[in-house]
Every structure is written in C-alpha cells, then in structure tokens.
C-alpha cells in the first residue's frame, strides 16, 4: 500500500541521443516516458536532455555486499542456511546511495563468505525505501524486492581460513571448529543437503518436524531459490558442478569463478551461469579500491627508527646476523594475520578479501572475455565495490574493464543490465528500456563504456536519485 502511494507521482520523461535498450539493441534519438514508476513508452525522436548523452536501463548488479557490513554471518555454526541477509542489511546505509549514484538501481546482496552455507541473499532496489533517519530525504533507502533470492554456498578458503582444530586452552572460540580444509567444507555441504533430503522425505511422510535451515535447503533443492556457489579455483568450479549432479540442484549460479576460464568447456557444457566478482588487474589484485595487501603487510611490519646503533652499542645485538630483516620488530604471524584480516574490513564491509587474494594466483582481467568467447552464460558483478567511500570498481567499471580486456563492446552492457536481470529471475521487470518495465534508467554524459562518462540522471522506479543534467 505504501509503495503504491509512493509511486503515484513518479513521472519522468528523458530523451537522449543514443538509447541502449539493455538487450544489446541501440536506438538513435529516442524518448523514454515513465509514469507511476513504470516505463510506459519508448518512442523515437525528441529533444535530447544533454548533448552527446546516452541512456541505458538502470544497472543491475547481480553480486554485491551492499549494506551488509561486518559480521554478517553467524559464527557459531558453519551452516546457517535459513539466515536472511535482508534481516541484517542496513537498508538506509550509504553504500546503497553510492551504488545508486553510480547507476546501479537493482542489486543482489549476498551474505558474507565466512560460513560454508551462509544464508539467503536478497534482491533490492537501491532507492525508494523508507530511511530510518527521520531527517533523511524521502526514498533514500533500499527497498527489498525478494528477501530469499539465493542460497550462498562457499567452496574454498574463505569458509575455513579462520578455523582451527580445538586443542588445549584454545577451545573457547567459535573458530575452534570444522571445517579446516576444502574436504571439510564440501563434507559440510553434502551433509547439509543429505539431511535436507531426509527432512523433506520425512515431511512428505507426514512427520511433524520443522527446521528453518532445512526449509531453506529444501527450497534450494526444489529450485525455488537458486544455489549460488562461491568457487574461485578451477577445481572448486568442478566440485560445484559435481555437487549439482549429486543433489540435482535445479538452479545453480557460480560466483566469481576466478579460474573458470581454465574449465570453460566444462562450464559451457553444464550451461551453468557465472557471475564474476570484481575483475582482477595485471597483478592478480582485485580492481576494487582499498589498501592493497602489500601496503597492509608493510604497515604491519613495524620498524624501529634506527637499528645500526643497536648493533654498535648493545652487546646483545652484536652477534646478530645483519640480514635484510635485521632490526625489524617481529610481529607474531597470527597477530599479523589478524591485522590483515581486520584491516580491509575496517570501515568497509563485506567480501572476504583474504580469500580473494589467496585464490587469485591464476586470475586474469580477461576472464569475462574468455568465458563469453567460450559461450559460457555470464554476468558481471562488482562485489564490495560500493562498500568503500568511493571506488572505480562499480558495475559500469566492471563492464569497462571487461571491454578493455577483450569483451566485444556491444556485449558488455547487457551483462550489467538485461542478462543480470534474467540471472536474478527479474528478466521481465528490470534491465531493459521497454514499456511495462520498472522506471529505472541512467542518463550518461557520453558512451557509458567510456571512463570519462558519468551519470547525469539516475532514476529508480521513476524517482530521481541524482540529477546533474545541464541547466538550460
């Protein structure tokens, strides 16, 4: 009811010199008319709002951690399938506004990767919700479209990096637990789905039992919710495909698939879609902003101001070998790991950068081009790009990077609009400029794939988030 009221006045007419419909087709001068929050017509001709401007559908980012913040998975168990990120996401957090201002109007928000099965991700509109802050501008909050839009399963180092074998005095911690290996992670996944199968059979047999986690797993088994597996190494990709066969997951989406290009034929044959994470650059480093690991490591290795004098005056040091590390204060490795773990997350948010770093040895920024060239269904995701105060790593930047690294330019925009919407199961609602679709659009100052272009106008459901059109 409230949303209906909000939409009543949402009318907007935008004309641009080039209009990208979202499905790959491009029109010349055309006008898009939005009424009551929906597109009612796309007609040729009109008086462009700005010279050289391009119009695209609102971008759809199928893989983000918007508003998710820290500690988004429950640490006390490794399988928390029924937990919903929509319950914890800060919907009026700044990251949604940042994303919206960069042209992202629809986003999938994912639970963090520290659990083997972390819970259910949600699909949101980045604008148009109700902010908790009474003084905030109306609509400056995300609006949840689907609270259960994907079940996050993690194969790989993220889910066991933190854990250790309980022993001696170190048992009083949530990290003193299984799994500590890939084998353990996959065993957890298998065990969970096996239990869910038995639970389903028992329920069908009339047993009066209820379990929210198992309900979520059953929903995934029956295809009501897609299983979204984070798998970066190529053997993890293979494991995910094997698990799909084993449990007959009707809908599987692979997240990141950093090394997916090494098994691209297998991927193509499986028909499973991939949503990439933030593209890596030449140095196997995620292109998203924030401190690099080298910087963090350097910051963690404190050095005293002067070591030569220690060497000269202090008999204790006199016989120390004068090697490269001499004089550095040694930080115990576990403390350094803690620091490295904490630092990227401080003030930022989700996305487990340690995992991405450790599993990026064979990454390539040409991943999108290689997968698309092999015929693997694919969309682009920006991961934690919007969690930083600013970055050059949002969805449009992922498209730009993909094009720079070999993806044909005409294929790029659909990967962050219509194709991404289809992957999220919203193919008939968002991601295209066509009558009947949501009134989400972005007017760019030039070709959206040009790094010198910026959004002049962003609208979500016809509501204007940002308007920097030149004033006449």
């Amino acid at each position: 009811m409230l949303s209906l009221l909000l939409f009543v006045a949402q009318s907007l007419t935008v004309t641009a010199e080039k209009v990208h419909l979202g499905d790959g087709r491009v029109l010349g001068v055309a006008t898009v008319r939005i009424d009551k929050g929906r597109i009612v017509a796309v007609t040729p001709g009109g008086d462009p709002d700005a010279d050289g401007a391009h119009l695209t559908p609102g971008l759809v980012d199928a893989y983000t951690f918007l508003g998710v913040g820290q500690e988004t998975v429950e640490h006390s168990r490794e399988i928390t399938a029924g937990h919903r990120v929509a319950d914890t996401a800060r919907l009026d957090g700044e990251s949604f506004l940042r994303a919206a201002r960069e042209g992202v109007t629809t986003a999938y928000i994912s639970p963090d990767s520290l659990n083997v099965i972390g819970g259910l991700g949600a699909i949101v509109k980045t604008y148009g919700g109700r902010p908790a802050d009474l003084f905030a501008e109306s609509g400056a909050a995300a609006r949840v479209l689907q609270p259960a839009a994907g079940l996050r399963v993690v194969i790989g180092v993220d889910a066991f990096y933190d854990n250790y074998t309980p022993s001696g005095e170190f048992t009083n911690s949530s990290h003193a637990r299984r799994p500590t290996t890939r084998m353990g992670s996959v065993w957890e996944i298998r065990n969970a789905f096996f239990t869910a199968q038995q639970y389903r059979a028992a329920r069908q047999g009339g047993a009066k039992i209820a379990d929210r986690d198992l309900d979520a797993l059953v929903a995934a088994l029956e295809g009501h919710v897609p299983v979204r597996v984070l798998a970066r190494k190529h053997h993890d990709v293979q494991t995910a495909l094997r698990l799909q066969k084993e449990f007959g997951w009707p809908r599987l989406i692979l997240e990141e698939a950093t090394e997916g290009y090494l098994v691209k034929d297998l991927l193509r044959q499986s028909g499973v879609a991939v949503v990439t994470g933030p593209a890596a650059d030449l140095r196997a480093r995620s292109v998203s902003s924030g401190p690099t690991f080298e910087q963090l490591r350097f910051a963690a290795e404190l050095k005293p101001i002067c070591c030569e004098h220690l060497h000269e005056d202090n008999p204790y040091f006199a016989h120390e070998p004068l090697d490269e590390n001499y004089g550095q204060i040694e930080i115990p490795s576990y403390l350094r790991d803690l620091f490295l773990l904490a630092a990227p997350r401080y003030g930022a948010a989700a996305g487990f950068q340690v995992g991405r770093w450790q599993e990026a040895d064979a990454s390539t920024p040409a991943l999108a081009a290689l997968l698309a060239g092999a015929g693997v269904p694919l969309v682009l995701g920006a991961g934690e790009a919007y969690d930083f105060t600013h970055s050059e790593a949002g969805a449009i930047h992922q498209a730009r990077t993909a094009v720079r690294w070999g993806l044909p330019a005409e294929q790029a925009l659909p990967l962050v609009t219509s194709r991404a919407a289809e992957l999220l199961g919203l193919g008939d609602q968002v991601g295209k400029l066509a009558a009947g679709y949501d009134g989400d659009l972005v007017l760019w100052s030039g070709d959206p794939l040009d790094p010198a272009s910026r959004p002049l106008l962003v609208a979500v459901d016809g509501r204007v988030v940002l308007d920097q059109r030149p004033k006449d």
Partner: protein
Amino acid sequence: MRIPALLLSVPALAAALPAQDGAIAIRAGKAVLADGSTLENVTLVVQDGRIAVFGGADVEIPFDVLLHEWPAATIFPGFLEAQSSGGLDRPNENIPIAPFLDVKDSIDPVSFFFEDALRQGTVALGIMPGHDTVIGGRGRVVAPTGMTVEQMTLAENLGMKMAFGPKRGWSRSSQLAELREAVAGLDRSLRDHGQRLLDGEDVKSEKERLLTAEEKKKAKDEEEPWNRVAGVVRYGEDFPGKALIANLDLDDGQLGLLRILNGEERLWVWCPTATDVMHAKQWLEEKNLLADTVFVVSSAAWKAADLLAGAGLGVVIDGDPWHVERDPITWKEVRTFAPLKFHEAGIPFALGSDPGRVGPDRLGYQAALCVREGLPRAAALAAVAATPAKFWGLEARLGRFEPGADGTFLILDGDPLGAETHVLEAWIRGEKAYDRTQDKRLQRLLEGRDQ
C-alpha cells in the same frame, strides 16, 4: 674466459643504446599532442634518438630510413609520471635526515613496476625516495626500459625529497623539530668551523688528510670532488670565516643539506594535509626556497589550494584524487575531487599512478577520470604529460613532437584517454621498448593460459 669478455661489453652497449645510428620514420593516421589537440596523417622522423622532423604526409623520407606505416593508429608523446617510489626495493632509509642518498642505488631495472608502466604507456618516471622521511635523498628521471640504471636515466638529478607530513609513528611536531635541529646543527658546525679556519687551525677533514700528493695533483687537474673549493656556503647571513669553508670540510650529509639551503636542489615536498602545506610553505619562504619547490600532496591538501596558488612550481597529487570526509554533525560523506580544486585555483598539477589510488593504475585512466569530473581535456592531459615534464625541467625533451626532442612516443590503437585504447608499441629515444605482440605476460592473461 668468455664471461669477463661479455661483462666488459656491457658498458659499451650501455653507451651505444641511447644514440643509435639507425633512423626511423613513422607515418600514422593521427597524432594526439600533449595539449590534447589532434592532427591527421602525420610523419615523425627520429634520428640518433631524437626527433628530426615532425610534419604531415608530405614529409619526404630519405631512402635509408626505416619506415613504419600505421595508417589506423594514433601516435602520442607518452604519459609521464611526475613522482613515484615505484621500482625501489625500499623507498626510505630508517634515519630521518638522509640527503646523501640517491635512488640510483635502489632502482631495480627489472622490477615488474617498470615493465607494467611501459605496458600502460608511461615513458618516463620521476623516481623519488618515499614519504617516510624528513629529508629523503635525491631522485632521478628514468625511462622504464634498460637493464641498468644508467641506461634508464633521462636526468640524473631531479632534486631532493623532503617530508613535512610526519614519518610513520612520529608526531608533526617531532617532524618539524627534526628538520629545525638538522639545520641548526649545520649552522652551528659551520660557524664553529669558520672560526677555526679564521684562527688558522689545521682543521682538514680526515678524508683530505689521507690524500697522497699524487691524488691531490690528479684531483686538481681533473677537477674531481677531492679538489678543495672554498666558498660553498652561500645561504643565510654572514659569519666569521664563512667564505673560507670548503666542500672538503663537510661530510656528505652536511653537503646535501647545504645544497638544499643554498637553493641548489629542486625540492619535492611531501605535504599530506593542508596543515603540512602551511608549515612547509612557511619554512620554505623563511629559507627563500619556495620558487624551486614542487608540493607532493594527498587529496586532503585541496583545502590549502589558496596557499598553494602561485607557490613554487605546482603540485603532484599522490594517490587517490578523491578526498572523502564526514561532516561531523550530519555524519554524511562529503566528497571533493582534488584535481578540480587545484585546476580552479590555477595551480599546475600532475597525477600519480601509485597502487592504492582509485581505479586502474594507468595514467590515461586517471586523466579520463579528471575529464569525467569536469576538467577540460587539455588540463587532464597536461597532468600526465606536459606538467611533469615542466616539473622535471625536461619540457624541451619530453611530451612534445618537435625537432630536437627525445624520440619518445607511443603508438596507440585509439585516443590516449580511451578505455579500450592499448599501447601497441612504445619507443623510447628512438628504440622500440615495447611491442604488444611480443608481450608474453599479456598474452597469457588474454588467452587464459595457466601459468
């Protein structure tokens, strides 16, 4: 004994490389100049490592010049990185006053940093000591190609790095106190030394005392640094014996500091915040050194734009061009694009590409970012080409297509600021330094081969 013979040949090669006899000519469909303007159908002739002719399609090419035809490509003088500590194994010594250091001894010619810079179209870099210092040492301008520092070097003395932003773990007051103490210490020791020279004391330094007669004669004949030259102290007010003090009376650290105070070094002054700009400017004005200073700032220093206007040579923005802070009352993010502020204040500025800044570490991308945020194209290009050359004093050699300038240029498959533009070839002083078709690492990434 083949190996010594091979080693002996290396210096000969090094000497031969910058000045090759083979002349080349490039005919390209387009040229983008450092000011952003475009010319169609151009011809560039490079001889002995320098540009001999730059003109239109009608330029006649001598029969013995190797012609490269690039009808669909764009030539561009190349991106210049004003200052960076990339390619140094460690950017700073752990003592705060180190004017005797030179990055020459730390540059690793085969580091990935230089390889990648070349791949991204950076044809010259000002390599400076890092920011974690008070006086960091001397920098130099290098090209990202060559197997030795000598081969890479375009200009040996780029000036001294100083930092007004505190060293790691230091307070701002200890930073300034350290600098003042260093200057005061030099002052005291010069006055003391001057008096002793006046008094006729034998105050020869140990290194001078140990010279043999033969060495002294040689030094005199060849004007080596062992030659005693009096009157090296030229800064500050007069004191007894000032004119008698000679180079040999000072150690390397004192000499370096003296050269700074004499105004004989271009200064690259690290000021991460607006406060640091204020302190630095005050100190430099006091010492009459402001004119030949480049302020190396972080984006937070945009608040001192009015102080920086007209001060020194200009500004290098190190790291992230965005400054983001929170309003203390509303807790809202306030974002400022620092290059725009400097541009509006009329301050010449250059951009850096150090890792950790926003977006890909390509200078072309950083310039495109400036265009996106409202700077004119010419100003954005200047920040990664013409302005660094000016800061280095190499504007006659780099960043231009004119006879006599270095034969350094890129062959691009598009506009220098384009997202899809790649460097096809990079030529440095008449030598082909990079060829995309031969870039093994790039091929591996593009073709998706495993390791």
